[in-house]
Every structure is written in structure tokens, then in C-alpha cells.
């Protein structure tokens, strides 16, 4: 079946511009996660959604970052007024439920802020 998909695969933007990153999770998965992967830094948790509950935003590094999940499916991560330190690979994952299942990862979006 279809896995987690993300778009775009690569995004180059100028400092100060806004960007939107999209994630399509596996159908039926109630949990959706966003992570940021920087070279040598591992995976940094950003935000997760579980069903209809309020998202856990505790990992968002600043108020320039926000995310939404529409209809319990597709999610969009928005970064406003991008900075060079935002350059990283942004990974999305989904799982049947939160915490008790493996996560299925998408291919990521490589964001470069110039």
C-alpha cells in the first residue's frame, strides 16, 4: 500500500519568505508526527497530532513554526519568515496510534534557506 508521502522533496527559499511543507500520512493512521533532521543532530521532535485531540506543539522551536492537520489526514507545516538556521530535512511520520506502534516515515523535505 501507499506509504507516507511528503512534498515538495526539495525547497530552496530566500531568508524571510514563508514556506509550507505537506505530509500525506498512511490512511487510517491516527497519529502524525513532524521532526527536523539536521546534520549530526539526530531527529528533533517538532509537533504531533493524535486523532481529534489538540496537537502537542511542545517541540516547535519558535512561534514562526506552526502546523495543522485537516480532516485527520493531510498535514501542513508552515514556517514563517524563514531563517538560515531553519535549513534542514523535515520528516513526517505516521502510526496507527500514538506511542505503541512503529512510526512510518516519509522521504522528507530538504529545506534550504539562502
Amino acid at each position: 500500500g501507499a506509504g507516507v508521502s511528503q512534498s515538495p522533496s526539495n525547497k530552496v527559499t530566500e531568508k524571510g519568505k514563508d514556506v509550507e511543507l505537506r505530509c500525506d500520512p498512511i490512511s487510517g493512521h491516527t497519529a502524525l508526527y513532524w521532526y527536523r533532521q539536521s546534520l549530526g543532530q539526530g531527529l528533533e521532535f517538532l509537533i504531533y497530532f493524535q486523532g481529534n485531540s489538540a496537537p502537542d506543539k511542545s517541540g516547535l522551536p519558535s512561534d514562526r513554526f506552526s502546523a495543522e492537520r485537516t480532516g485527520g489526514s493531510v498535514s501542513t507545516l508552515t514556517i514563517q519568515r524563514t531563517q538560515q538556521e531553519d535549513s534542514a530535512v523535515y520528516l513526517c511520520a505516521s502510526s496507527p496510534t500514538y506511542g505503541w506502534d512503529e512510526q512510518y516515515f516519509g522521504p522528507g523535505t530538504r529545506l534550504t534557506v539562502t
Partner: protein
Amino acid sequence: AQSVSQHNHHVILSEAASLELGCNYSYGGTVNLFWYVQYPGQHLQLLLKYFSGDPLVKGIKGFEAEFIKSKFSFNLRKPSVQWSDTAEYFCQRRALTFGSGTRLQVQP
């Protein structure tokens, strides 16, 4: 806050050598532990997981891990590595907490 530590950042081995990658987790809370692998240019994928029961867990591609509660450890092992095991390996604790990763390079 829960945390996971991977102390080996970069490991270089020759083919057929044995592998052990360290993973230590912080005390407290639910202990669901996972190892993921990211092959060059590919998605992160699950190698194995531990929730409870037999502390020796077997995963795909000949990998195994042992949960040692007294040491707060969940080390990944493989008796004989292959060049195709070259990848980055991540230990995870219950959904949100990943270690910083270990880059494994296997030389033919």
C-alpha cells in the same frame, strides 16, 4: 524529560566484524524502545522494537537488541556486518524521543 543517548557517533568496521551500538535511556515513564535504520537515500525504517517480555529482541536483517533494565540500555547488535549495513542507526524511546544517531560505515 525523557531522553535517549547514543554515545557512538561514527563507527567504522570491516565486513564480518561484530557490531554493538549503544543506546541508553533515562529513568522513568513507559519504556517502549525502537531501533530505526536509515540507509543512504532511503526512508527511516524500523529494525526492531521492545515493549515487554523477552529482553532479547530479534529484528530484520540479522539485527538483535537486548533490553537491560538495570543498565537502562537497549544496545543493538549484529554478529557479522555486511557492506550493505552501512547506514545511520537511531534509537527511539516511545514516539518522540530519538537519540542523535550512529553513522555506521562498513568497509569491504
